[in-house]
């Protein structure tokens, strides 16, 4: 059993039980996640590390409701995501999960403000643009609202992406190598910002990274190898943040 979770006092934000996932078909089918059991407490920051191909991003996608497990149970923000159909899952994501990608994935035809407003608009918020503007101001881009992604630096783009992920006030924030496409200094700024927002809002935070130092800033580090959670001792079990 690959169980390294700390038993939380209240219901966990994310709970995975014996999750298996294979991708591809026929001869190319690869068993990526193998019997993964993991619990992440509300408000906890968890760093997911491991070598390339170990299944970090896939595990993140399962947590974000972007990928369905072949077997096992996945409960996120109190919701058994295995029971949701495609559309319910999309709505659930829009509401409960904020995602930050390595390549930002801003919509190039939309301004910074519109990019941040999109998830709010999709959820039907009537004050989408006011809230988007507040989120952008909070990440220091209050004067960049009308800029298109192409007019922003990499760091600024990632800030917009962070504002977009946090705009609907999700219970969970997941980030997939958010500094991978940034230089060191800019990466550090973004990471600081993410941890600051996580602390302010008590958002559950799951961070996939190659960087052990970055992972070490989390409450807990979960190490993956060949699709399994390694039973190695976590560097920070006490819950001290940063």
């Amino acid at each position, binding site marked *: 059993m690959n169980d390294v979770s700390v038993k939380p006092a209240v219901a966990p934000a994310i709970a995975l039980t014996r999750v298996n996932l294979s991708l591809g078909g026929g001869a190319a089918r690869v068993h990526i996640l193998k019997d993964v059991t993991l619990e992440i407490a509300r408000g906890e920051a968890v760093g997911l590390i491991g070598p390339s191909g170990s299944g970090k991003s*896939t595990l*993140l996608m399962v947590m*974000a409701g972007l*990928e369905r497990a072949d077997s096992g149970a996945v409960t996120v923000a109190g919701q058994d995501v295995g029971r949701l159909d495609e559309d319910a899952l*999309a709505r659930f994501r829009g509401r409960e999960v904020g995602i930050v990608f390595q390549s930002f994935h801003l919509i190039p035809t939309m301004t910074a403000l519109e990019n941040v407003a999109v998830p*709010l*608009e*999709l959820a*039907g918020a009537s004050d989408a643009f006011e809230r988007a503007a507040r989120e952008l101001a909070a990440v220091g881009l209050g004067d960049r609202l009308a800029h298109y992604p192409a007019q922003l630096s990499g760091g600024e783009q990632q800030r917009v992406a962070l504002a977009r992920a946090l705009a609907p006030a999700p219970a969970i924030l997941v980030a997939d190598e958010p500094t991978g496409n940034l230089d060191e200094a800019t990466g550090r700024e973004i990471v600081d910002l993410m941890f600051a927002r996580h602390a302010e809002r008590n958002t559950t935070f799951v961070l996939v990274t190659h960087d052990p130092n970055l992972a070490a800033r989390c409450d807990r580090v979960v190490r993956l190898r060949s699709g399994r959670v390694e039973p190695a001792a976590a560097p920070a079990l006490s819950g001290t943040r940063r």
Partner: protein
Amino acid sequence: MTSILADAPAVRRRQLALRLALRELRAGLRGFGVFIACIALGVAAIAGVGSFAQSLVDGLAREGQVILGGDLAFSLIQREATPPELSFLSRQGEVSVAATLRAMARTADGRATLVELKAVDAAYPLYGAVDTDPAAPLGDLLARRGDAYGAIVDPALLARLDLEPGARITIGQASFELRAALVTEPDKLAGGIGFGPRLMVSEEALRATGLLQPGSLVRWHYRLRLPAGAGEDTVKRVTESAAMQLPDAGWDIRTRANATPQIARNVERFTQYLTLVGLTALLVGGVGVANSTRYFLDRKRDVIATMKALGATGTRVFAIYFTQVMLLAAIGVAVGLAVGALAPYAIAAALKTLLPLPLAPSVHPLQLLAALAYGLLTAAAFSLWPLGRVHDVPVSALFRDEIAPQRRFPRLRYAIAALLAALALTVLAVMAAYDRRMAVIFVVAALAVFALLRLVAAGLMAIARRAPRLRSTMWRLAIANIHRPGALTPTVVLSLGLGLALLVTVLEIDANLRREFVQALPERAPSFFFLDIQGADADRFDAFVHAQAPRASLDRVPMLRGRIVAARGVKAADLKPRPDAQWVLHSDRGITFTGDVPQGSRVVEGRWWGRDYNGPPLLSFEKKLAEGLGLKIGDQVTVNVLGRNVTATIANLRTVDWESLGINFVLVFSPGAFAGAPVTDIATVTFPGGGTPAEDAALLKAVGNTFPTVTAVPVRDAIDAVGQIVTNLVLAIRVASSVTLVAAVLVLGGALAAGHRHRVYDAVILKTLGATRRQLITAYVIEYLLLGLATVLFGVAAGSIAAWRVVADIMTLPFAWAGGPAVAASLVALAITLLFGLIGTFAALGRKPAAVLRNL
């Protein structure tokens, strides 16, 4: 948070889709050129054809009185109105009489030519005006001065006989002075096709010619001007009382609302063909729409996945992109409608002098609405399928570089929506058609060609996949390009194949019509038709022709004109003939009577009555037309000849060799059926192997001098007149078809441009690995040639088969495959494929590997 959890109302959801769609479109229309152009082109073609035709129909209706020459027109053939008929007419309003016939105009030095003679009274024209050059009152121009009557003449006659205004000619036994050139003849259209130039004289002058013999082929038109303000109910009342009070008059009654039923019908029918051609353009363009949509969505995969990651459902994403595509389609439709709406104005301005038709250019909302529906439905039918796939774009694409396998089929609901749009398009095409059977055939043929072309593409790819490994790298590369995933094969085959098939169809039909009407006159075709040979002159005429042209053969039969007034006891107006047989009832037909089976005819059902038959009237009917009218042996048919109704029983059915251009009749009666009626003969003179121009001219001159009242119609002239019309029609079809070709080229260009990125990548990698530019070009040339050749083979085959069916079944003409146009079209198609393909390739070859590799 709960405030944003609530489901937004439907209206808000739709607004959001529109808002997000508009936001996305801010990036500009790059990449949508082909999409918009394809829709615009098809819509412009359909809207243009529809608007032009409607302008023409409106023009014909508005000018009804002028074209008809009155509020009502009563036409009689071979006889004048009787006193009771005249008194009936003059009780209704003002009457004007005009007579038309074909006659020979002769110059003092003996040259002769056929003219369309029109004799008018003092009241002519009741509506409109005759314009002449020099302008002068009609009465003065036509009046008798000394021994000559005045005549107004089509300038073509002056040119043909090399005469100046003021010259003299003889017609029959009367002498005429050509006093003015005819510029506008208000009621010209009602006359139908003329085989010669118009010559207008007075009624008195016509009587002086001596051409008015019993049985002469003269049409008498009695035009009626109703009291001012008479409405349609008065027109109807006059028509009804004419039928009631004079049931046996046998006249053809036309009203101002239906002045030129033949032209109106032809306009409608021709409009349908052109609309179908326009629809083909739209369908070819549909391939471009589907391609553009697919490339667009490929480019948008990341954005779509991001939207889904942010909480957009598959349905929502579909709505956003469907809205975008339909907005783009609306741009194309708007451009097309603008062009189409302006078409009547442009054509009216450009062809003002050439077009002998009254055009009332205006904007026709109904026609534009139909074109709009065609455009939007085509866009929907062709884009819904690829759009449906966005529902299932996986968000995982954002995390992995893997190429997620694309779903081949969209979800059922999108497939059904696409099919419904296609069905709506079909229903619209069929419902709007004049001849629905034709429209259904078109739809089925279009579907079959689409399916076949997909099969051809699939087959080509399968063959390429299974091809043995060749030693030449370039051949291997070329063949691999034909079958690799995402290959251009299906698009090239579909767009080029469809365009080429249509082009070959049109070219083959064109070639066959030309051969039939213009070029190769059958060797056994006569040189002349001689009309109005009086019975008393018949033997003298025979002897004269034999003496003048000893090597020519002469065929002479009696001819009358008559109209079918009833069949099977049903009135002609109430018969419901097949569309291809309607013309038999539309006006009077030439009829004959004989004891022998006519030349060129073969009895295929029933028995011929024999030379000595002497019983009640029997009738021999042309088989196809009899079937079209629902007639069989034993049925009774009543024809009105010279104001008398004659009823005969169908004794047999014949097939007729129309192409012989001999004297062929739909209706042949037994001897004695018209005993006592004044009959003239019609004769053909045929030189074996065709007459030389000198022989033709000599005979024409000799007959003209000796038999001034006999009219000679040179077959060559008649054929030329018909050929001219055919040429114009074919030209219109060609113009419409060229729209389809432009669409095909657009689609092809779009597809090859979209494949360009792939080409650059291939070229750069291969160059990095040591391929020379020559090797690469060779590989691409081989690929495009193979693709082009396969498509050309299919296109030519499909086009030839389609042309064969149209020529043989619809036009009922013999079909002969013309290699020249097909080969020319094929070469053009191959050249276009190579050119478009290589334009992209040259650009690819010019790239420096390092620059590209850095950006890969």
